[in-house]
């Protein structure tokens, strides 16, 4: 297949547009955000959706990862190259792909696009958004019930509206459960412009260390691949817990060494959303519009792997019920 593309390309003369050499249909393509498919967290959750599609639907998924410091033009070129090579659907993982998906979808109306964590209004785009604040609320409940020192910590990758949802939910969950517990809040970057906050485990490690010194014994890190550094630091200290994010991090092979310190994870089922979209395209009825994944749909949930929160499961279930039936309204801004 690569050879035919090469032939088609070399046949095209100078001055011609690259889009004139279109490829055959190829199956789904997934464009990751900074951090890449093996970030043990956000991107990997999306990758699991692709892997599942490969297993169950027999498609072959093409993956590509963003570099740090990309512009909208970079991201747009990645998506348009995917579409013009014949991939369908083309999925952008992360809100940074918002503008790029919007522009690419306009140029390739016959291709279905997916966007995670952002809403793009177009007929050929499926927007996947998650109730991160709700899962984070449950993480807050767990932290408040499990802390011995009455100090817990939240580390965010970058201080942007998306990560603030995690912070807001976590803080509210803690406060509603036990008002005496103090929540320390730190962000790795206020604004990096490069996505560095989600690929800087060393910095997360330092922040976690600083929080442990200030008596925090449970640290919730919402920072993609950076979170691995925080978990590593937490695992050095007896009696200190980490709360994972986006993937069920207890189950991650890359974190297995430290899994005894992973209390639970606020899981964001990007895999389910990505699989839904691929399946819909394969079956000929592509999804479009906005797909909202909340607690009720199990689009977000609190992981129970490891059994460390079995003793407080009743309280967590009660909080979950409360959010689903509307008794508890979780704020999206801190």
């Amino acid at each position, binding site marked *: 297949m690569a050879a035919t593309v090469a032939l088609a390309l070399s046949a095209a003369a100078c001055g011609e547009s690259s889009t004139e050499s279109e490829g055959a249909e190829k199956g789904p393509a997934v464009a990751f955000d900074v951090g890449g498919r093996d970030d043990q967290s956000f991107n990997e959750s999306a990758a699991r959706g692709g892997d599942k599609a490969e297993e169950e639907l027999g498609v072959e998924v093409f993956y590509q*990862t963003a*570099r740090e*410091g990309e512009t*909208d*033009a970079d991201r747009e070129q990645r998506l348009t190259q995917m579409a013009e090579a014949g991939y369908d659907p083309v999925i952008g993982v992360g809100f940074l792909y918002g503008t790029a998906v919007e522009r690419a979808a306009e140029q390739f109306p016959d291709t279905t696009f997916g966007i995670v964590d952002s809403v793009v209004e177009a007929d050929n785009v499926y927007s996947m958004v998650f109730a991160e604040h709700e899962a984070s609320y449950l993480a807050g409940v767990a932290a408040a019930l499990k802390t011995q020192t009455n100090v817990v910590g939240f580390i965010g990758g970058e201080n942007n509206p998306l990560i603030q949802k995690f912070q807001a939910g976590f803080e509210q969950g803690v406060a509603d459960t036990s008002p005496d517990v103090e929540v320390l809040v730190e962000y790795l970057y206020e604004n990096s412009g490069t996505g560095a906050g989600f690929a800087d485990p060393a910095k997360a490690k330092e922040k976690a260390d600083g929080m442990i010194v200030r008596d925090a014994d449970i640290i919730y890190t919402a920072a993609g691949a950076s979170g691995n550094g925080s978990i590593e630091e937490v695992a050095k200290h007896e009696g200190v817990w980490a709360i994972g994010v986006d993937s069920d991090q207890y189950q991650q092979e890359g974190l297995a060494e430290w899994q005894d310190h992973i209390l639970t994870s606020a899981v964001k089922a990007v895999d389910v959303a990505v699989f839904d979209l691929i399946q819909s395209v394969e079956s000929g009825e592509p999804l479009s519009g906005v797909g909202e994944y909340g607690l009720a749909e199990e689009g977000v949930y609190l992981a129970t792997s490891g059994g460390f929160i079995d003793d407080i499961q009743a309280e967590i279930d009660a909080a979950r019920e409360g959010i689903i039936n509307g008794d508890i309204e979780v704020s999206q801004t801190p």
Partner: protein
Amino acid sequence: MTEMPATVSSLTSLVRDPHRRERLLLGAAAPALALVTAFVLIAVVMAVTDQNPVRAFGLMLDYGTKADSQVWIINKAIAYYLSAVAVAIGFRMNLFNIGVDGQYQVGALIAAWVGGSLAFTGLVNIPLMILVAMVVSGFWAGIAGYLKATRGVSEVISTIMLNAIAGSLVGYLLKEGRLAELSGNIVHTPDLPDSSMFFTIDTGNGEIWGTVVIAVLAGVAYWFLLGRTRFGYDLRAVGHSDTAALASGVNVKTMVTGAMLLSGVAAGLVGMPILLNDSGNFGNNFPGGMGFTGIAIALLGRNHAVGMAFAALLWGFLERTGNHLDFEGYSREIVGVMQGTIVLSVVIAYELVRRWGLRRQQSRVGAELAAGRAKTNDAAEVGQ
């Protein structure tokens, strides 16, 4: 790039003076040597990792010369070039302005906010935004210049720290209710009205950003100011030797602050292509990191107004075609390897050629002196 030796050989027939000819040849030898070395090294790396380098280079050349690729490369190169000019102004004076990254982001944020909230007609708004960006970025760089001139603080340290502070400041100001508004998960300054966007040139295969004009003007201004004015002469003199410059009456402290300010003013332009031709606002998706790319490009272009333009285009070319390689089964990291190898090769090749040229010059001068002495000795003997 391969045409370079040909142009040079036709030039040599024009240049009769053998010394000038040698200088020109040496000047061309360095980039040629660098590129050949770089490509050989890259080919070795690819061959070792079981990737066919010949096919890769073929694919890159083919894809990179497509019309829409060329438009993309030019657009991408605009900001890189401006960033390189900002860095080069410092380099010419031996000042290492690592802070271009922070400088342009602070400048672009304030400019975007001013442009978005005042919303005058484009005729007023665009120059105003550019001016604001230049002033704010210049001020940010000026802090480092002032510290260096008055307190002797190394500009390397202070500009790195100012980058971190700029990141925090931008993060602080870029909040709903401060300078920004929220749409979805993006928080950004108010959108510029359409009239405040820069013009574009439609090629039929994509639009070239009009801000390319700003880059050309900045390049001309850089060449003129540093190469053709008293200020530029003083600046370069301080760069060569500040004690010598001081002895010849140059106020070194004023020059340090001035050069840093100027570097910052140029840095203010870096964010403009994206702001005025693409995003129309400054949000948390506004790209960072271009200040560091500028350092690599200034090194590659040898601080030369035209050299840096080629370097910026080469960078754009590598990014455009490197992504394409990913689709052909090559690992995407290969582009990073290429960029790094090229910069390293250029730096090393220039140093090697410079040393070789210096030795040639020394031995020639030595030979001439010896010959001269022999001649005077002969004359003296004859005179006896």
